[in-house]
Each structure stands twice: as C-alpha cells, then as structure tokens.
C-alpha cells in the first residue's frame, strides 16, 4: 500500500506530493500554478501508473513479474511467458543496450534488473503526461538521484539542483533543469558497488560520482548508469550516442 503525503498551498497555488517506497525510493512531485483538484487527480494517476510498474519490476517483491521471471531463469526453465507490459520494458531495455554498445544491460548474472532504467522511464512518462494535461512547470524527483524539471521555477529561469559529494556533503556541482532531467550515479559511503560492469560482471567500487543531464529523463538515467560502469576510454563514444546529453565526472572522491 502506497503511503502518500499531499499538500496544497493555495496562496502560491503549489501542490506537493511525496510517496515513500516507490521504485525502491521516495518519489516527490511539485506542481506550480495549478488548481488543487486538478493537481490531486494528476498526482493520483501518476502514482497509480508508477505503482503498477513497480509491482511489475520490483525485484524485492517475490510476486512481481520480474521476480517470477528471475526464479524461472534460475531454475533454467524454458519458454518464459512475458506479459505485454514486460515485453515493452524489455524492448526499451534492448533499445538502450544497443545504443550503449552493450554497456547498459538489464540482464546480467542470469537475472533481470530494471533498476537503472525504470525511474528514468517513469519520469519521462510522467513529464509527457503532465505536458499533455497542460502543466508547464513542475519538478519530479526520485530519491534525489533522478530528477526531471518541466519548465522553470516561478521565480527563476530554471529549476536548479545542487549535487552533493556523498562522502562529505559538500556541493560537487549545480545543475540547471529546464525541460530536462538529471541523473546521478555513484557509490555512497558504505554502499559501494551497486553498479555492475555487465561486460565483466565486476562491481564498480571506486569512489566515483557521475552527473548526467539530458532532455529525456530515461536517456539521462541509462547514461549515468552506463558511464559509471564504462571504462574511461569509452565515455566519449557513449556520450556521442546521446546528442544533447552532458556528463560531469567526479572520479576520485
């Protein structure tokens, strides 16, 4: 069951909603210059959509489709059945696998993990939905590491985000988002190695942070994961596949 906390401030016509434990983290959304009722409906439909995908892709929920697929794979079963939704996710993952020359791969070590893709893809979907419904200024935030900015801050010309050094808390860089997205990948203190180089199966252990911005949130998400795992020599080539995307590397924190 999703716990959500919805706030509306009528003076500034701003809606804020926070849902804990969505895609393994906290999801926050801020909509400006909007009516309360419209905001509630929009937020609910976005949460519902992401929640449905989460129950498909959550590796920690044994009843999710991904978990069932992974246990079937572990038991070397043949003829796996994919739902229509899952097929779409696999197609999207395949698109990015090809685009990154195999560096980004949701399938490694005999199981599926959509962790490096799902949040970005959800942000992309949510941003599109908001635009379609006439919302021009909003900020969407998955756990502080995947953020999409629609339009701009009402008192600035963009949304600006400081990215902290996870080891010291100092600001590494400040990013401007204006109809664009940010994805930060890295190793936090005591929790290194959650990104795996899918080509050699090794965990990326260096104290490194990669900050990526792109117009498309899913591109940003995939690229930050891929760049974290890629050898330095392949960074330029990867970036060239994503025109408009930019990356900043903090390699020896």
């Amino acid at each position, binding site marked *: 069951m999703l716990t959500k906390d919805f706030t509306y401030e009528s003076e500034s016509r701003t809606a804020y909603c926070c849902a804990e434990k969505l895609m393994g983290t906290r999801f*926050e959304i801020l909509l400006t210059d909007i009516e309360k009722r419209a905001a509630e409906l929009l937020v609910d439909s976005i949460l519902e959509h992401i929640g449905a995908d989460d129950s498909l892709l959550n590796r920690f929920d044994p009843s999710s489709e991904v978990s069932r697929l992974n246990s079937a794979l572990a038991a070397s079963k043949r003829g796996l059945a994919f739902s229509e939704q899952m097929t779409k996710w696999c197609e999207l993952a395949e698109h990015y696998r090809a685009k990154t020359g195999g560096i980004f791969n949701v399938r490694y070590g005999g199981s599926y993990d959509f962790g490096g893709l799902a949040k970005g893809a959800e942000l992309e979907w949510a941003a599109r939905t908001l635009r379609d419904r006439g919302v021009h200024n909003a900020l969407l935030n998955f756990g502080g590491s995947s953020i999409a900015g629609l339009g701009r801050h009402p008192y600035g010309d963009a949304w600006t985000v400081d990215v902290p050094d996870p080891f010291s808390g100092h600001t590494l860089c400040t990013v401007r988002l204006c109809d664009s997205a940010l994805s930060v990948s890295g190793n936090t203190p005591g*929790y290194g190695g959650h990104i795996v180089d899918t080509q050699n199966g090794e965990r990326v252990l260096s104290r490194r942070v990669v900050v990526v911005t792109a117009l498309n949130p899913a591109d940003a998400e995939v690229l930050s994961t891929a760049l974290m795992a890629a050898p330095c020599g392949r960074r330029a080539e990867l970036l060239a596949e994503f025109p408009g995307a930019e990356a900043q590397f903090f390699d020896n924190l």
Partner: protein
Amino acid sequence: MAETIDNGKRQFLKELGAGAALLAAMPWLKACSPEKTEAASQARGQARVALIGCGSRGQYHLTILRDIAHARVVALCDPYEVNLRAAAAMVPDAKLFSDYRSLLEDRSIDGVIIATPLGSHARITVDALEAGKHVFCEKAMALTLDECKAVYEAYQRSPKALYYCMQRMYDPKYIEGIRQIREGLIGDVVGMRCHWFRNADWRRPVPDPSLERQINWRLYKEHSAGLMTELACHQLEICNWAAEKIPVEVAGLGDIVYWKDGREVYDSVSLTYRYSDGRKITYESLISNKYNAMEDQILGKKGTADLTRGVYYLEEDDTVSGMKQLLAQMRDKTFGAIPAAGPSWRPELRNSYTPHPLIKGPQSVNGGQNMVSADHDGSDLILSAFCTSCITGEKVENVVEEAYCATVLCLLGNLAMDTKTVVTFPEEYKIPYMKF
C-alpha cells in the same frame, strides 16, 4: 614560505567569524590573532625557542617552525645522538645540548618545546617554568596523577605561558562543530562515542637491544600510560568540551590481546566514562584492527556530529528534501538551488544518513592512521601562538586546564582497568576549573 602559516591563520579566524562570542567560549584562540603576532614581532623581533626531544614529533615541529616567521630555533636537546644529529641537520646553527638542564641555563632562550616521552614531561615542564621559560609541551601532561598536580601547581606559581599540543582545540572543524553543537545543531547532547583503531605494533626499529626501552618507550609503564595518554587524551578532551562537564566516574577493561611482545601497556581498551547526569562516553581503542579508524562522535537527540570528519547527520533530515525547501521558496517568493540527495538513496542503514559539512570549504581530515598528524590539524597554530606568547609574555587561557582534565581522565581510566573497579573522580585531583 614564511607567510604560509600567518595567512592560513588569518583565514582560519576570519572564516570562523571569530567574534567576541567565540573568543569568550574558546579563549585560547585569542592568542591566534594575527594582528597581535604582527605587532609583537615588529616591536620585539622573533621568539627564540629551543626543542627538547628531537624524535619524530620534535622533528615534525621543526618543519612547522621553519614556516613561522616570528620563530627562531636557537637550541636543540636530546641525549640520543642519532636524533640530535638529525634535528641539527634541519637547523644547522642551533646550539646543541644533551642535557636539558644545561639548556635551561641559557638565558637567551625565551621558550622551550618539549617533545620527549611522556615520563619526562612533568619534570622538564616544571624545571623549565622555574627557569623562567615559556613552555610548549606535547600531550599528555604527565605520567602520573601526582605529576599532573605538580605541573598544575607550578603553573599557578609561574608568570610564564604554558601550552599543550592538543590540536583539536585549534582545529577549525572541531571549533566550529562545538560552537554549533552549543547552539543546538544536534539538539541535547545525550552521549559521546569515540574510538581509535589502528593495525600496527607501535614499535620502532632498535639499533641495539640496550636501547629498547628508550626507543620503544610507548610500550613500557615507566615512560608511558599507553593508548589512553597517546590517543584517548585528545578525544576525551573533546567529549568534555561538548558535555561542558567532567565525568564523575569511569569503568573499563584493558588487555594485551594481540601484541604479546613483552610490552607492558594494553593494546586493547574499552571504557565507559559517566557524567553526573548519566550521559556517557564510550571509548574504545585497539591496535590490531583498523577497520573503524578514528571517530569522535557527539550524539544529540536530533543528530550526530562526527567531528573527525567535520560532518553532522540529522535524525529527521528535512534538509534532505530539497522539495520541501522549494515549497518554502514558493511561499516566500524566492528562488534558490535545492540539494539533491546523494545518489542511490537507501533507507534504514547507518550510511543512508546524509552528511552535512560543519565548515565551508576544504578541510583536512586525519583518519587516525598516522603517528604524525595531518597537515593543518591545528599543531601549526598552537606553535605559532606559543611563539607569539614567547614574544608578548602573555599566558594562554584554559589550555593547561583542558590538558590537566584530559590527562587526569586518561590516568583514571588506566586505574579503573588496572584495578577492575569503578573509579570515582578523587577529590584531591579536582581543580576549580572542573564542573561535574
């Protein structure tokens, strides 16, 4: 070169916004005023200082002194030829002594820097004060409780300045950390947790077996009080600083767990110091595993300051939600950047706490592995302030008292471990400075 330390110092005081309030709370910082140093050295020239004890720490001080414009090292003393010669190579025109008593007779010397093994700190300090010298002594204050008392009393009688090399008192991240803790940064201080782990035997190579006790003095009780005075001393001082009190009792267990090489001091200690209000310092040191390194944690009801790293963590971290900050901006019609959380936010792990820096800009952090401290840990500032005192003749406030409190607590900890009893702070070693 000569400018390095003075500039650094000016920067340090400015960055901390060392106003009247800070100087009132930490009066020893008054001696760090660059204006004072400049005025003094313009009027009276350099401080003429001598180094007693030319081993590893003594030589480290010589490297710092080279960069202090208002200091001149005029004499060196060490009965151990090898170290005396090594130091003489760094300061070729210094006079050389093998007995500190002859050095103290030299009237051209304003002040002495004592970097000898702990067992001789008290004797040399008292003799130097009585010989009319300003004194800078390495921590800890002394090997025994009675010696601490003797030093304290000699200082009360003396018009001279006495400094102790307790770097944390001069380290910007500690100063700023304690200041903010007192302003409520982490709520009520409810406890302290300090440790120092290393994986090394603490031994130095000995050219001749007859020199074993002299060179490896840290391992023998006639010269050393072991891990407590060598390591814990710095950390207990910080706890008292945060608690604004002195513990009333201590219990602990000490053992030689791994380095059974003939040493007499513990290589593993675990102690609990208790303040009158029930708050506790949990202290641990072990030198056969270094995973936990060194930490000085002040635990508050609302957060934790890890002063070693110069960061703090909040229990309920609203600042992490940049989005909540945005809501406030909409309300106030302002614009600003919001912080993203660190990458891969993970709930419910110790490491999911977000670190916030205690001071702006870069800072030096010593993980505790080195014998000689990290650069700019404060040692340079203390030496510089000491040299200023050698010129102005001004005493420094609170340093002797802090060193006395910290050393006595170390020695009481050893007493508790040696006797396997809960030791109550003895009346005869209380001084007016202490609040219980």
